[in-house]
């Protein structure tokens, strides 16, 4: 496998599919078994943020998720919606703001909770936003990259 692409309408029911695909592919990408749960959760939070941003923007763009196992395991979540241009930590702030306003009822946790989970579980976390939408990139090393204590392929 090099690259697997998934695209789905921005509806909550499909986030589960993205999670399942992520775990299935991560297993094949020699990611350590004990972090499969973390990948499952991080992908769910990234997709949830994308949905929240779209809902707030009243944008019906689909959500695209690319999975790449060529260097560890990388997941990139992308979607439309016009956002201020930013990269890195500033882009994560833009995403948090854009998703937060969507939380109209007081039951929603601040988007900061989703980002806190992402920051904890994704060793690589990068973001960019622009008038074309948002891109969240999550990455995990392969077991073989962890050194002598990691299992090798």
């Amino acid at each position, binding site marked *: 496998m090099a690259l697997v692409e998934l695209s789905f309408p921005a509806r*909550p*029911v499909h*986030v*589960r599919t993205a*999670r399942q695909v992520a775990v299935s592919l991560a297993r094949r990408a020699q990611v350590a078994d004990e972090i499969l*749960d973390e990948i*499952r*959760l991080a992908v*769910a*939070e990234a*997709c*949830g943020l994308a*949905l929240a941003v779209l809902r707030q923007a009243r944008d019906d763009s689909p959500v695209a998720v690319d999975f790449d196992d060529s260097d560890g395991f990388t997941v990139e979540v992308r979607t439309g919606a016009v956002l201020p241009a930013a990269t890195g930590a500033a882009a994560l702030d833009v995403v948090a703001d854009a998703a937060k306003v969507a*939380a109209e*009822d*007081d*039951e*929603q*946790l601040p988007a900061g*909770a*989703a980002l*806190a*989970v992402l920051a*904890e579980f994704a060793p690589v976390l990068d973001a960019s936003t622009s008038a074309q939408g948002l891109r969240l990139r999550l990455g995990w090393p392969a077991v073989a990259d962890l050194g002598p204590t990691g299992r090798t392929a």
Partner: protein
Amino acid sequence: MDLSLSSRLDGGRTVVEAVGEIDVYTAPKLREQLTELVDAGRLDIIVDMKKVEFLDSTGLGVLVGGLKRVSQHGGSLRLVCTQERILKIFRITGLTKVFAIYGDVATAVAADD
């Protein structure tokens, strides 16, 4: 796996047993159940999460909303959770300070406020 919910009375408290996944898709079902209980005047609630296989921040949001609602009426919302991977999510988001979390239902029922 979907989310299935069942509720029963135990020692004057309502125990809601959640089985399956609480995510962005199924969380509204839990919210609905909690709202119905509060509307029916059942204000002391225990959510038994021992058989929850997955919980995301949307699910956390619904639990926080439920806690707010029962608290407004002088009630309580306690959690039963034993799985480390789920407890970790509560810790990361600072919610272990907000919820009373127990290792089993009997202890949650018997606990003093």
